[in-house]
């Protein structure tokens, strides 16, 4: 499988990254080189192999639904780029 420049732009946008046009050529060829490494996997027969979801095959531990964390809203807001009274500010989304 090989990516063209248009696909690379689309993937970048999916991940909310922008690629300048002058970088596009190089990024495309780098990504294709990396993806060509993956072709190696096609030669392996994985017919009835279970995908490995966890290195120790453990299941997700659940806890009781109890409040364990204290409210640290002020500390968390103090490190934000832009805040209002009790919220994080971003450019207007809805007029």
């Amino acid at each position, binding site marked *: *499988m090989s*990516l063209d420049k248009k696909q*690379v732009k689309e*993937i*970048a*946008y*999916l*991940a*909310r*990254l*922008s690629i300048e046009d002058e970088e596009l050529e190089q*990024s495309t060829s*780098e*990504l294709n*080189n*990396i*993806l060509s*490494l*993956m*072709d*190696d*996997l*096609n030669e*392996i027969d*994985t017919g009835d*192999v*279970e*995908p*490995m*979801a*966890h*290195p*120790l095959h*453990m299941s*997700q*531990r659940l*806890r009781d639904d109890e409040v364990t964390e204290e409210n*640290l809203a002020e*500390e*968390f807001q*103090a*490190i*934000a*780029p*832009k805040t209002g009274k009790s919220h*994080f500010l*971003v*450019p*207007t*989304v809805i007029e």
Partner: protein
Amino acid sequence: MMHNLSVAGLIKGLKNKDFSSVELTQHYLNRINKSKLNAFISVTEDLALAQANAADLKIAKGDNTLLTGIPYAHKDIFCTKGVKTSAGSKMLDSFISPYDATLSHKFNSENMVMLGKTNMDEFAMGSSNENSYYGPVKNPWNLKKIPGGSSGGSAAAVASRIAPFATGTDTGGSIRQPASLCGITGLKPTYGRISRYGMIAYASSLDQAGPMTQTAEDAAIVLNAMAGFDNKDSTSAPKETPDYTKQLTNSLDGLKIGLPKEFFSSGLDEGTEKVVMNAIKEYELMGAKIQEVSLPNSMHAIPTYYIVAPCECSSNLSRFDGVRYGYRCEDPKDLDDLYLRSRSEGFGKEVKRRIMIGAYALSAGYYDAYYLKAQKVRQLISEDFKKAFQSVDVIMGPVSPTPAFDLGSVKDPVSMYLADIYTLSVNLAGLPGMSIPAGFSKELPVGLQLIGNHWSEELLLNTAHQFQLKTDWHTSSPIEL
């Protein structure tokens, strides 16, 4: 001098009042200030001296633990409350963590002394430390060479004796490879052994913290302080932790060592192979039995890892959106522009590359061909190890195909990825692995890799310690700092 002492030696020194924690801390801070390696992103001088003072008071009252007053360097991937935690990224250059990682909390509660935060590849993605926003770290054995990565600052700091020990994290070799290239001891424990809470995530099913030290004995002492179940980490293993120093002195007579034939194929530097084989001979002299094993699927570890890890990273790093913390671009015109420019300006090249590979491999229509396929091959890689450990106790081989290469010499990403060939499969299988100093090739240190079955850290540390009783590679240190 104090800085040549191991952690075990420093513990004795503090106990005998040969020096105080403040004296010790000041000595290391002086060395850090002289250092040219760029091993630290932040040096927390005032905090360190305050912590050392507090430690001396605790020691005077007899209210101390084994590690009270011992200085260390903390990889800048662990959140430290009130201290900048950058993960080597412009994205977090202004991030002062509002909370402590469990590991930071554990060290603080023993009144240990943090000297500073060490340099690393951005978000732990890299094998050479050249991907740091703060510039590359230099290898103390030769300033033109890379120290390895991603825990390159930690490895260089311990090797050059500007810190007695350091923390590291290992997702695909990031403790073992820099440990090998800088000539120190590095341990990546079993997945789930040390809490990942507050350790900035790269690939969550692979990431594991561990100690980077001069000796295996030190690694055991420090692992005692690091390991243990943590309710705050949902992947932490609910399992008792032994005292890792207890089995160090066991005899290795009859130990069965497996050498994977796939680890000694073409591409392995001749000098590196020689060092590894000499180390194996040393083990034979101690009564160990050597046999060949096969890990046929380990040769597929590179494509498997470079699908699984980028997929997990593309998901993990989606949290960096310029909204709640970290870097935000100037004057975003709308929300989409805010996301796009904050992420594009805040992340470095390699991080963007891996996010894009992950986004592609997880996207509709490609998921089965890439992610699912890789998770199946991961199972096969893991089964190979399971089979091998039915006939051997420890697997040994090289850590890295070559000693440290020149800064700036490897430019294309694929060549860089290929150098991870011997370390990746251990993370994919969740196994513990170590690198211990075993000799030199081209005047640069070479590590021996020890791989054990799940939860066999005691055996690995015992195996490493016995080697260090018979050899002195771990005591050689570079002149540069």
